[in-house]
């Protein structure tokens, strides 16, 4: 109790310092006065008595110091003095303060930005959800790869069989665009996520108004025409009017009763944002012929999530789910043949956490290197400043100041700079985040990952500031206070240890900058390679409209004719040059499971006949629309049918792979074997090659391509799922609206089509590179600049210290050229050592990133030699200025100095 009371008082005294000081001074002088009275009483004169009193009392200042120690926390008390003192010092040297704060702001800002993104995509628990740590994602994998959707029937099986979960829910992978009928006619587009009626209860979400779906709501197809609004949509569209609860929304022409509004910020567990949630058993109502989605085991359109029972771990649940997956494979060999089930810890980007984390780790690494450079730079400057203040520090040490006290004061200065840098860094992070977001292409559905600087980001930044301030301030502070008082006061010029430390900082700076510039160079080379390289197709002026036929109830037999009918009508539209339908475009993320493919014999390197390939399912005109040239043979002619000869067009890579010793042209007419097509999963079929086309020279980051491109006609091998209408117009005009109207006139039940420029679609695969190039490139530049400043600073400092020596040399007859060379040599040695370390470091690091470089070798000579040359030039320039100045030393003046 007393201890606590004392602690409080000690803390309080820091803020009541002036009062306590005055009280203490008054008390001590009263003490002295009483002593003086006593001595006077013994017969001394007033003057003698005063002196005697001082003598008897002892050291007034020491007494006060001891009292202060007991009264308060010294370090806290000191900090109150140190920080304003540091601020005064910084104000006196605004150039230094600004440079330091800006370089730190960039380093800290970059780190905060990456952290904010990582936090949004990987760590932040979903809003409005109870105990998110017990939530998991459940998905399907094919041959152990990917993390995908499941069918509704599979979901029901999982829910029935599992014992690891308190609840299992499902939701559609992408929010679906729907038309919302307005009050006065007309329609607007809203995004709806189909969910099971237990969705909100399992997540533990609470309503902001009305209620959410719960056990009352039936799961039978078409039985629950109800909707829950998102808080954002409620605000945007209905101005938070509670009267909407109980009202009706007309979605795709069907009435839905609004039962409630979800709490603010709630958007399920992912980054995809929906305007409304509707029970997924209503999918047949919003798209009248899509009831098959609820009954077809092959229609995988749902992501599944679950709440683990208390005490059940993710691996335990995963093991159980694997077993369920294998059972389903046995029970439904046709549909579930290659599908395994997996359980993963909850993520806003289910199944994509690992590649995103890897990419963000690269960015974080780059950002950390920049920060390290800024810190090394600052540490070097601090060291130089400490050298200037050597006398001041020595005087204070001689006067009896404690070393710890001085270290604390120097650290307070560093911390003040870092606090400035951190605050500026937060501002910088805000603009960096918006620049990064602007690099992203448009997505066909809304995504909401808040990148605001929230609590965790602030904590992260503060921690970073403290850590880096300590890391870069401690060594200079310790070094500065290690001063040998006597030699410092005599202004002895030899303090080699400090210079060595400073040189070490510059070497580290050069090495880290080289690493950064090499990586930036490699990314730029990779991007340049792809830019200058003919991608093998031309997406410019091509428009895409997604078409989800299974969602509108089309089956494997009705979809192909309808697709053909749509295509025929689109082709007749004015301004349409070429139109086709395709399942995927190069650079997209889709990969269709059309089974393995084999050449005439077991030619695969591992001796297996069938290998996996990148499949695409297209209508005639695909190659013309994307201007992919034919090497040999011809396009599909449109007459392909189920019963006619099965044909295929392959890419050059596949031709070389299967017929290594034949010229590509003569491959036409040969056959390949497909195992496990969409309708004949367990059988093989022979496909005759009718054409060979150039390969798109394109890799994507998230899923690399196999290099084997196989195109099959849609009329022979339709795969249920999203397809795209691909249109090239004669004059580059966008005609998405016309096509939408046309499709709506043919089948009003088809969900609204989302349109996109093909360039945006294909650019998606390049996003990580563009981000990496801009991040590493701009940060590399900053590092370069800081390194130049560092080299200049240390060379100039060393030259100034040698002024006397240089003066003597010149007086003894050294030529200016000799002096120039001498100073240059000293500076360039640092550049050389730093460069060697940096290049070695870069050579060790770049192979780790080789996968991101698109075939640019990790030890790309252009990049490495270029970087080395760049640093040599910059190093020379940074050393030349101080060297020039050194040659102008006037020997008389230099010798007289002392």
């Amino acid at each position, binding site marked *: 109790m007393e201890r606590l009371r*004392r602690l409080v008082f000690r803390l309080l005294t820091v803020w009541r310092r002036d009062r306590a000081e005055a009280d203490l001074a008054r008390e001590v002088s009263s*003490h002295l*006065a009483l002593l003086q009275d006593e001595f006077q009483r013994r017969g001394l004169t007033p003057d003698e008595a005063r002196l005697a009193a001082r003598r008897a009392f002892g*050291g007034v200042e020491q007494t006060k*110091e001891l009292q202060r120690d007991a*009264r308060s926390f010294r370090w806290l008390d000191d900090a109150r003095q140190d920080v304003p003192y540091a601020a005064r010092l910084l104000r006196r040297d605004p150039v230094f303060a600004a440079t330091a704060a800006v370089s730190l702001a960039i380093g800290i800002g970059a780190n905060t930005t990456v952290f904010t993104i990582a936090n949004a995509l990987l760590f932040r628990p979903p809003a409005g959800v109870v105990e998110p740590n017990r939530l998991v994602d459940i998905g399907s994998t094919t041959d152990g790869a990917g993390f995908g959707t499941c069918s509704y029937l599979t979901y029901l099986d999982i829910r029935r069989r599992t014992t690891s979960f308190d609840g299992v829910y499902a939701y559609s992978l992408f929010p679906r665009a729907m038309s919302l009928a307005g009050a006065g006619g007309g329609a607007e587009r809203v995004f709806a996520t189909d969910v099971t009626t237990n969705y909100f209860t399992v997540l533990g979400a609470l309503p902001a108004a009305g209620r959410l779906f719960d056990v009352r709501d039936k799961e039978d197809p078409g039985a629950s025409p109800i909707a829950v609004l998102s808080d954002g949509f409620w605000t945007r569209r209905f101005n938070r009017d509670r009267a909407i609860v109980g009202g009706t929304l007309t979605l795709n022409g069907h009435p839905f009763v609004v039962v409630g509004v979800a709490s603010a910020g709630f958007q399920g567990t992912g980054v995809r944002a929906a305007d409304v949630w509707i029970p997924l058993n209503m999918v047949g109502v919003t798209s009248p012929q899509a009831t098959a989605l609820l009954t077809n085991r092959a229609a995988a359109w749902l992501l599944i999530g679950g709440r683990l029972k208390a005490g059940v771990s993710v691996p335990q649940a995963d093991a159980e789910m694997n077993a369920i997956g294998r059972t389903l494979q046995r029970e439904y060999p046709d549909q579930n043949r290659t599908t395994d089930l997996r359980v993963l810890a909850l993520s806003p980007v289910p199944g994509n956490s690992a590649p995103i984390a890897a990419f963000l780790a690269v960015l974080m690494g780059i950002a950390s290197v920049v920060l390290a450079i800024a810190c090394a730079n600052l540490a070097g400057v601090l060291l130089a400043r400490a050298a200037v203040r050597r006398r001041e520090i020595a005087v204070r040490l001689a006067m009896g100041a404690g070393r710890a006290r001085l270290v604390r004061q120097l650290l307070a200065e560093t911390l003040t700079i870092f606090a400035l840098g951190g605050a500026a860094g937060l501002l910088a992070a805000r603009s960096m985040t918006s620049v990064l977001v602007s690099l992203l292409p448009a997505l066909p559905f809304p995504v909401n990952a808040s990148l605001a600087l929230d609590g965790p980001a602030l904590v992260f930044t503060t921690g970073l500031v403290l850590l880096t301030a300590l890391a870069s301030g401690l060594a200079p502070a310790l070094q500065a206070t290690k001063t040998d008082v006597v030699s410092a006061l005599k202004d002895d010029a030899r303090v080699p240890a400090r210079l060595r430390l400073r040189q070490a900082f510059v070497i580290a700076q050069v090495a880290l900058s080289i690493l950064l510039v090499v990586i930036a160079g490699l990314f730029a080379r990779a991007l340049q390679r792809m830019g200058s390289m003919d991608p093998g197709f031309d997406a410019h002026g091509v428009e895409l409209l997604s078409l989800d036929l299974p969602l509108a109830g089309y089956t494997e037999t009705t979809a192909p004719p309808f697709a053909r009918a749509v295509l025929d009508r689109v082709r007749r539209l004015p301004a349409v040059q070429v139109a086709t339908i395709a399942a995927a475009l190069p650079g997209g993320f889709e990969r269709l499971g059309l089974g393995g493919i084999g050449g005439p014999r077991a030619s695969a390197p591992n001796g297996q006949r069938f290998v996996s390939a990148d499949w695409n399912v297209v209508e005639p005109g695909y190659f013309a629309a994307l201007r992919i040239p034919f090497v040999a043979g011809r396009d599909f002619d449109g007459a392909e049918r189920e019963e006619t000869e099965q044909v295929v067009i392959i890419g050059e890579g596949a031709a070389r792979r299967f017929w290594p010793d034949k010229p590509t042209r003569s491959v036409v007419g040969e056959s390949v074997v497909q195992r496990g097509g969409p309708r004949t999963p367990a059988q093989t079929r022979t496909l005759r090659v009718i054409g060979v086309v150039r390969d798109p020279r394109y890799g994507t980051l998230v899923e690399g391509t196999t290099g084997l491109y196989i195109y099959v006609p849609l009329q022979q091998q339709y795969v249920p799922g999203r397809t795209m209408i691909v249109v090239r117009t004669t004059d580059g005009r966008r005609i998405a609206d016309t096509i939408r109207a046309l499709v709506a006139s043919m089948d009003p039940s088809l969900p609204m089509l989302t349109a996109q420029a093909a360039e945006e679609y294909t650019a998606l695969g390049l996003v990580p590179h563009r981000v990496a190039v801009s991040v590493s490139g701009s940060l590399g530049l900053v590092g370069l600049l800081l390194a130049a400043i560092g080299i200049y600073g240390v060379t100039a400092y060393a030259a100034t210290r040698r002024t006397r020596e240089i003066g003597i040399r010149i007086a003894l007859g050294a030529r200016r050229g000799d002096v120039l060379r001498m100073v240059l040599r000293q500076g360039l040695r640092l550049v050389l050592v730093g460069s060697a370390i940096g290049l070695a470091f870069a050579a060790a690091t770049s192979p780790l990133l080789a996968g991101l470089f698109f075939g640019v070798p990790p030890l790309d000579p252009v990049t490495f030699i270029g970087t080395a040359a760049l640093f040599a030039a910059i190093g020379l320039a940074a050393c030349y200025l101080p060297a020039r100045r050194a040659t102008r030393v006037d020997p008389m003046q230099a010798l007289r100095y002392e």
Partner: protein
Amino acid sequence: MASESRDRVELLQGTLDLIVLRALSTMGPQHAYGLAARLEQVADHPFPLNQGTLYAALVRLDQQGWIKGTWRKTENNRDAKYYAITRAGARALEKQTDRWRRLAGLVNKLLLQGS
């Protein structure tokens, strides 16, 4: 020089607080000078009292709420801060004295046993 005075502080740490409490309890309210004079008077040989440690002890006791300081006039009409023991201080003195006696007894016993 500095280290010498620190030794002295360590020597008195803890016991000085008790002595001050005791002095205030027997003498009634006292100022720092009065306490210093009293301590030197009580000691048989010159008491190595550092004024600084006395002031530190006073601030410690004050913050613990065991003594309370008020500014008053001395008989000679000088300003002085008089410290008086509080009720909590009196209780603490009793406890601390008891503890000290037991500790001193134990140390004594151990030291005597050895010889």
